């Protein structure tokens, strides 16, 4: 039963991935005028016509539609996503490198946000209506309402007063001493056993990661607070208390357990939204992740890179959500009927 569900889910995900590839392809086509024109970055001047011809052949625009679609799909899985106009490198390389940098922040941010958010939410739910709860509510509301990039700008201004080096992902002096394996300086410095570099990379990652964790922290707190409050009035919770089982133990084992599925469901949308936050925070801190790469691509009309990022990030989401969904179904025995 469970296996059937997992297979069905993975099948659906593959369909969605194909859909994303098709979507990216369509986006190349909806450009007004000649699609090839935008693909080569809207060139002007004498060499323009030639460049456009090359692009037409490259994009396969002179071939029948279904053939093009097939080509695009094949090329995608071969990681042949075109060349970035701005960086003059393969799009795939840049896109993956940017994604890894962004993931660094994402992972650290959520490692911070999930436990802290759960704690805060539990506290607020247990003492609902009291002063502590009101404070929690106010703080989370302000955090959700604040533009995180603005907070980042404030943070940068503050940190500069203290002369802390926060920009970039790693100090220039360490860059050469690390072997790039994963693309993440934090991990690679550990692999290369350079702990000074590791510390440097970590400290540079912490302020932006903390800023990035503010939104998920606030959201998780709110969700836990809300759904735990409901669960605390479920029959089985009261009954467990009646049997004499200790209060906090019951909260942990009975009520919180049932909050996990709710969290898992919402986590997808939360991460998608966090990504925008992270993109802007990266910008402020000068870390070259998806946000900065995108920002650099726009003024150069680097369309191949943008589409490449779009496809990559979308597919990363699909994979992440599928895994989350499967884990969710594994945890909740009620759904296994």
């Amino acid at each position, binding site marked *: 039963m469970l296996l059937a569900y997992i297979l069905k889910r993975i099948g659906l995900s593959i369909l969605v991935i194909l859909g994303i590839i098709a979507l990216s392809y369509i986006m190349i086509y909806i450009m007004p005028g000649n699609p090839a024109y935008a693909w080569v970055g809207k060139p002007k001047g004498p060499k323009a016509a030639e460049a456009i011809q090359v692009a037409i052949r490259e994009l396969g625009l002179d071939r029948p539609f279904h053939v093009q679609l097939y080509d695009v799909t094949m090329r995608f899985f071969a990681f042949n996503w075109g060349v970035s106009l701005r960086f003059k490198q393969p799009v795939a390389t840049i896109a993956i490198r940017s994604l890894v940098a962004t993931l660094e922040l994402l992972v650290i941010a959520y490692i911070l946000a999930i436990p802290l958010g759960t704690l805060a939410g539990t506290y607020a739910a247990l003492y609902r209506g009291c002063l502590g709860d009101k404070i929690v509510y106010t703080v989370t509301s302000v955090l959700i309402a604040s533009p995180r990039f*603005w907070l980042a700008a404030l943070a940068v201004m503050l940190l500069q007063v203290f002369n802390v080096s926060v920009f970039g992902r790693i100090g220039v002096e360490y860059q050469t001493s690390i072997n790039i394996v994963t693309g993440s300086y934090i991990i690679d410095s550990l692999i290369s056993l350079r702990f000074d570099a590791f510390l440097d990379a970590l400290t540079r990652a912490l302020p932006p990661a903390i800023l990035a964790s503010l939104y998920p922290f606030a959201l998780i707190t709110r969700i836990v607070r809300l759904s735990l409050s409901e669960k605390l009035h479920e029959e089985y919770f009261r009954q467990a208390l009646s049997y004499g089982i200790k209060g906090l133990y019951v909260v942990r084992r009975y009520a919180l357990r049932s909050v996990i599925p709710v969290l898992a469901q919402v986590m997808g949308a939360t991460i998608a939204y966090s990504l925008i936050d992270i993109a802007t925070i990266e910008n402020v801190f000068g870390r070259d992740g998806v946000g900065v790469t995108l920002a650099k691509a726009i003024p150069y009309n680097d369309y191949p890179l943008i589409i490449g990022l779009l496809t990559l990030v979308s597919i990363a989401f699909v994979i992440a959500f599928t895994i989350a969904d499967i884990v969710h179904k594994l945890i909740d025995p009620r759904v296994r009927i």
Partner: protein
Amino acid sequence: MNRQVTSMLSKLLRKSLKFRLGFAITLAMVLMGIIGLVTPPYRDEGWGLVTPGTLAKQGLPPCLPLSCPTPLHPFGTDEMGRDLLSRILVGAHIALIQVSSVLLLSLFIGIFLGILAGYSNRVIEKLLSYLTELFMIVPSFIVAAAFVVIFGRGMLTVVMALVLTWWPWYARTAYTIVRGLRELDFIVLCEVMGGSKAYIIFRHLLPNTLSTILVQAIGDSGSIVIEMASINFLIGSASLQSIDMPEWGMIMGYGLRYIRTFWWIVIYPGIFLLLLALGLILMGDGLSEYMSPVLRRRWGTWI
């Protein structure tokens, strides 16, 4: 219908502190927007015009809690010499229009497709479910970047990108509600008595979905504001030339490069952004607490 809305509104205002606060803040923002549209202090500068006169007063510092160096420009001037207060005021009305557009368009598309998916045959249902899932996954800010490359940098571009990524959420809610209603007796009776599909949709299904979705939409509005500003921030920070249209996020994004010198270009619009989002969020929370009375009681702890 109208009377219901006004009575609910007055009840909300009376009973819910959150709603009162949020409503007041949002109203203040709307007022700012109206002033920005009709009579900002430096109208041309507000909309981005740069004259030799403006260039003469580049980078004037703003009024801080204790000192006010240039009383004529309470928020200082930006890197081109334009009055920041006017820019912010004009930006207020732009922000409001953008948010409303995103909401209206995505609600329209979302509810339409959602009801369609919930009330049609299996083929259309599966197809629309697939599309919904697809567009939910696509990240809005990258789509926005692509649109900027294609369509240039206008007010509509980012709005379109956001509509594309927000409609699936409303479609899903509408779909769930319609699926639930579809089995209910009164719908089945209607069909049996010969009511046309369109009639059932407009008379029965739509009103039921609207109320829930509207609450959801108002709750989302705060996030939409921030998302819009964040995307514009990215675009602004990438921009090679100064921004004309005083969209808050873009002003802040472009101003990022002056953070060490003209820091107020980034900081001041952010304050108002925060206020607008806060007002909307408080209203949304007040509304949803009103809708489910369980949440309204004063609690304590079991433990």
